[in-house]
């Protein structure tokens, strides 16, 4: 059985203003109907004007997705009635989208697979409906919040090249990473900045293809995978029993963890598309595209490959370090100051990422100097590795320099050879039997003497030094 999945993704852009008016586009969680104007609320007589940054963001994204950019594209009207659509039509690009024929590469096992992108176009978002109660079918009334009307979106449609729910999820995660690198979107599904609908079908061993099912209402990467897994199974069961599934739209239901038929919502609509007469066509030049191409940051895949190659770190590590631009930049800054790529990589992947995950931080709150200084303290023996790791959460939380924390907490490692020698000699005098045991071959007894030093110094002695001195003294 072969699974066939295609995705339709809507990405909210991080432009300052909305697609067709100068309202701020930063509408998340603002009081209802406070981020509006005559244009985005479809007042009689209002007209749209094009947000230039929106075009640039679209071209940037299309370039990063290896698309063909069209010098001529146009806006069209998609006509339908719904309370969250004030004009009774959505301004979108139907006939001539700004970009087509791109791809995004996914690592599948040892290979790189191209997931083709059919089209990428610009359109405006609709508002939000709040049904009294939670279900539209039981609500007494519905409230309309038009803040989101007119927020610029990019719609990305893939070819049905994805072959598993897991792959679909990774596609989305990769896409999100690219969008964040480009700084065109936050890509947060939880905040609605990235929305995804999927089309899924299964082909059996004889080549018979099931009906295609559209799956909606998945609002996190995890749920995309779960919903598609559920649907995949449902289809496979149907095929196995010799039947088929209905061609329909189904919604992911969080509570039952199943997909539920949304039939009734899915009537074949005739949107009566026609060119938007209020907006002249979008004509862009080669120079315009070149300029944007030049300003593109290094993208995740390129960076990952470069890190693996130039810093000699494993591919998996490179992937983690390049998961965000901020982290990758942090890593490179550290290596620039202290050229120890593998060590820095380890520190970041274990300590730093753990702290960031715990504090749910997206940004790296410490500077490269913090990490480098800590590493150097360990190198010079000022603190033990164990101590350094213990210090890390405090460095992360307070942003204090490691040296300062060592001072304040008196964590300096004991490196004084005389002190260590004295303690060991004392221990040797107190336990001549252990000395004899060591000398007669029981090397493990070394631990007793090391332990004695550690106890006396409250764990602050430099372990390597203790080991070295103890061994020397014991061997006589």
């Amino acid at each position, binding site marked *: 059985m072969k699974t066939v999945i295609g995705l339709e993704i809507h990405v909210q852009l991080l432009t300052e203003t909305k697609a067709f008016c100068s309202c701020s586009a930063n509408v998340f969680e603002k009081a209802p109907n406070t981020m509006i104007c*005559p244009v985005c*609320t*479809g*007042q*009689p*007589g*209002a*007209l*749209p*004007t*094009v947000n230039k940054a929106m075009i640039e963001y679209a071209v940037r994204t299309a370039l990063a997705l290896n698309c063909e950019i069209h010098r001529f594209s146009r806006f069209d*009207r998609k*006509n339908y*009635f719904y*309370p969250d659509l*004030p*004009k*009774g*039509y959505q301004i979108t690009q139907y006939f001539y989208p700004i970009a087509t024929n791109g791809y995004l590469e996914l690592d599948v096992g040892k290979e790189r697979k191209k997931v083709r992108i059919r089209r990428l176009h610009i359109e405006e978002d609709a508002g939000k409906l709040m049904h009294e109660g939670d279900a539209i079918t039981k609500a007494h009334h519905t409230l*309309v919040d*038009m803040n989101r009307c007119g927020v610029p979106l990019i719609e990305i449609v893939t070819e049905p090249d994805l072959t598993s729910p897991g792959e679909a999820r990774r596609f989305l995660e990769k896409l999100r990473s690219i969008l964040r690198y480009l700084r065109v979107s936050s890509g947060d599904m939880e905040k609605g900045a990235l929305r995804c609908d999927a089309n899924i079908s299964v082909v059996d061993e004889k080549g018979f293809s099931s009906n295609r099912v559209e799956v909606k209402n998945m609002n996190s990467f995890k749920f995309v995978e779960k919903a598609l897994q559920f649907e995949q199974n449902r289809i496979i069961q149907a095929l196995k029993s010799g039947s088929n599934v209905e061609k329909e739209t189904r919604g992911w239901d969080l509570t039952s963890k199943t997909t539920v038929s949304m039939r009734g919502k899915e009537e074949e609509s*005739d949107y*009566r*598309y*026609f060119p938007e*007469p*209020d*907006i*002249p066509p979008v004509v862009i030049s080669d120079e315009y595209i070149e300029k944007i191409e030049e300003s593109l940051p290094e993208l995740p895949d390129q960076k990952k490959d470069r890190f693996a190659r130039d810093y000699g770190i494993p591919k998996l590590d490179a992937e983690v370090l390049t998961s965000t631009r901020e982290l990758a930049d942090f890593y490179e800054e550290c290596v620039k100051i202290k050229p120890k790529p593998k060590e820095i990589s380890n520190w970041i992947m274990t300590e730093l990422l753990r702290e960031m995950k715990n504090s749910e931080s997206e940004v790296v709150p410490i500077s490269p100097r913090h990490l480098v200084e800590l590493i150097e303290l360990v190198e010079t023996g000022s603190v033990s590795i164990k101590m350094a790791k213990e210090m890390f959460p405090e460095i992360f939380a307070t942003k204090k320099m490691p040296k300062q924390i060592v001072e304040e907490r008196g964590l300096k490692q004991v490196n004084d050879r005389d002190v260590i020698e004295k303690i060991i000699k004392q221990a040797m005098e107190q336990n001549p039997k252990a000395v004899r045991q060591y000398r007669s071959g029981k090397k493990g007894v070394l631990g007793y003497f090391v332990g004695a030093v550690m106890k006396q110094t409250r764990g602050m002695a430099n372990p390597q030094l203790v080991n070295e001195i103890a061994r020397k003294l014991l061997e006589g």
Partner: protein
Amino acid sequence: MFRSLTIEDCLNLNREDLAAESVKEIEKMEPVLKSFITVCKDHEFHSGEFAGIPIAVKDNITTKSVKTTCASKILENYVPPYNATVVEKLLLRGFTVVGKTNLDEFAMGSSTERSAFFPTRNPWDPTRVPGGSSGGSAAAVASGEVVAALGSDTGGSVRQPASLCGVVGFKPTYGLVSRYGLIAFASSLDQIGPITKSVRDAAILMSAISGKDAMDSTTVDKNIDFLKDIENGISGMKFAVPKEVYDYEQLDSGVAALFDEALKLAEKLGAKIRKVRIPSMKYAVAVYYVVAPAEASSNLARYDGVKYGLRVEEKGLKDMYKRTRREGFGEEVRRRIMLGTFTLSAAYYEAYFNKAQKVRRVLSSELDSVLTENDAILTPTSPITAFKLGEVKDPLTYYLMDIFTAPANLAGLPAISVPYGFSNDLPVGLQIMSRRFHDAKVLRIARSFEKNSPYNSNGRIRLPVVRA
């Protein structure tokens, strides 16, 4: 006499009381004419070049805090939160807006009978229509209720009522005047234009309201001086007259005779007349009545009872939509929305809308060809004079009245109607059309006719006496 004052006349007067006088005239004549939906009794005197000059604005152009209805039940109590750009421009220059004039509902009509509230009467004969859709504005100007007015023109709605009321009506090149605040009917055809008692007034208003607007992406930056050459006459100019004018069966004989007279006058003034064929002109009305309703069906989708205007409460969304729009829109509006929805539907888009746009392009090219060889195209504005209220019932007959005016909208050309004579004591208008952005030339040609018309006195248009 207040009623005959032009903008230019007013510039030489003490203007503090002009608006008040206008309101007085309005109160006197409204029982007969009913040009106005809203009269602004309280108004401020703004300073500026045209301070205090009373002007009327068609009620499909938004005025902040003043009801703007489009003569429709669905916007009966709609108060816009913003001024149309043209209104801002007028106020900036000191004009006083004394009222909002009546129109065919949503500008869909040629008689102002399709207003949801009441019809307006023709000042020349109150049993007759003033034309439409800017009938209220034309009547208000012709009667002297106001000094000048703004209308909107989608298929002839400024020029035709101007013609039927014996005043000047000008439709600018598409893109010269901002549509921001003009409640849209057909986006690619609509233009706001002045209705005035003199050609020079039209030029003055054009200077006031034209200009690129950041709020309207379809406006262009053209610094046109509308007045500079306006008195320079037409000697040496070449005018084309489409033979299709004479082919039209419904052309009133009186109108035809006056048209020929005007052509002779042009020759006397040194211009050359050539008869030409514009083969696609016969498709103009059909193209117009595919494209305009299509765009309208989309532009009027926002009137759904959700956000503003009329809402007829019903249980369930679909029923609320249906009842609100059924009760809020008049018959003609509903007819055009249905037509437009049909021609945009997937099965018919290619055969109707797309085809019509292609024919539109062909027509534009033909007009352009003619206008490269000639300074202007001349036609009568309307094939008939003002008809009696209720006289024209058949929609198709009604639509065919746009036969000479629609081409200018389809091609985006500047066109004017200037009064030329009377047939059966009713005004007849001459239409002058030229190339895109040749608006100043159109005004200049019109001025020449106005100055030399035997039906004007000393270059001043004869105005009706309204018994009220």
